[in-house]
């Protein structure tokens, strides 16, 4: 087994509210993990710690050096007074040269137009959510973290999402999805987060 992420004794509290209590988690390459639990149990917090957006109070986080992370965390924030292309182009070009054909294709599958002249400010919640999913996978990232990815998506787009996830699984990506609504994409692990602890379904 190829370890790509390892959390050891991770603790995170906001004041007296202990959200993650001494958590251990080992994630292998090609794992497809479903994380669930009630509102406020700490799913988003856990994903933020893995992406480095939030520092843990205690414990160590290991991420395999040549893995790249793509993530959609909570409400994706884009630059509102710019177009979808300006946003995605800038993000893509931070590390690589943008593959226009590929991103355009991803957009089309979600019924978005990469060359739309409208500002993102005028996009609907679902459209922004789709942009959020696209940016998390467009650079061929090897680890993909998605926080409630299908929130706001219509039925057709949920099917597109499922298809894309299945392709990514075939591509040997490591995928972690935190959500309430269970949508089958072929998870190999299911983990419940409850009172600051992880319980893996056997």
């Amino acid at each position, binding site marked *: 087994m190829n370890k790509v992420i390892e959390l050891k004794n991770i603790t995170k509290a906001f004041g007296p509210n202990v959200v993650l209590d001494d958590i251990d988690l080992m994630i292998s390459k090609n794992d497809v993990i479903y994380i669930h639990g009630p509102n406020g149990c700490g799913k988003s917090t856990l994903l933020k710690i893995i992406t*480095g957006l939030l520092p843990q109070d205690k414990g160590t986080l290991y991420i395999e050096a040549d893995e790249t992370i793509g993530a959609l965390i909570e409400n994706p924030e*884009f630059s509102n007074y710019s177009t979808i292309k300006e946003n995605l182009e*800038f993000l893509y070009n931070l590390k690589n040269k943008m593959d226009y054909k590929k991103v355009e294709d991803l957009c089309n599958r979600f019924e978005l137009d990469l060359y739309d002249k409208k500002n993102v400010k005028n996009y609907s919640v679902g459209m922004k959510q789709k942009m959020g999913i696209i940016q998390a996978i467009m650079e061929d990232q090897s680890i993909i973290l998605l926080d409630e990815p299908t929130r706001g998506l219509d039925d057709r787009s949920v099917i597109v999402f499922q298809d894309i996830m299945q392709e990514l699984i075939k591509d040997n990506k490591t995928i972690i999805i935190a959500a309430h609504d269970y949508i089958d994409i072929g998870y190999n692990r299911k983990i419940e987060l409850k009172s600051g602890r992880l319980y893996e379904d056997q």
Partner: protein
Amino acid sequence: MRINRLVILSLIYLLVYIVLFAQFHFDPKMLIDFIQLDSSLFMHTITVQIEFIGLQIFKFCLINMYIDFYIQLKEMIDIRKGNYRSILFKQIMICALIIMLPDILLIRGISGVIRVILNILVFTVLYIVQLTSKNKIVFATSPLIYCVLLIFINQSTI
């Protein structure tokens, strides 16, 4: 770099100077005097005073419009392990240079060089303070503080 937006920003800025220039009957001497106003500003008409202070506030607003793009994308930059601070700093420096272009073009002698350098320095520092401060009062007053410091700089480098 987002060239399109920079060009638009520069054109808007240029327009302001053209209007000012026209107002001074296309007399370059008067425009230079206006840009380099010192405490004698307060002996001018109220219109000139408002225009001078307005111009300084406008500089901040214009950059805010441009820099907003990077601020909103902060989280996505961080996820990609991009260096948010250096990206932001680079963009602020580019904007500051564009904003100071009229001053740079009007450099006269050593004192002029010192004036421009001090001006850019003070402007950048205040802009970054304004940006990083979560305090609304700091946000609102930094263009005015810049205005006062600019008058000082102009006063002491004549």
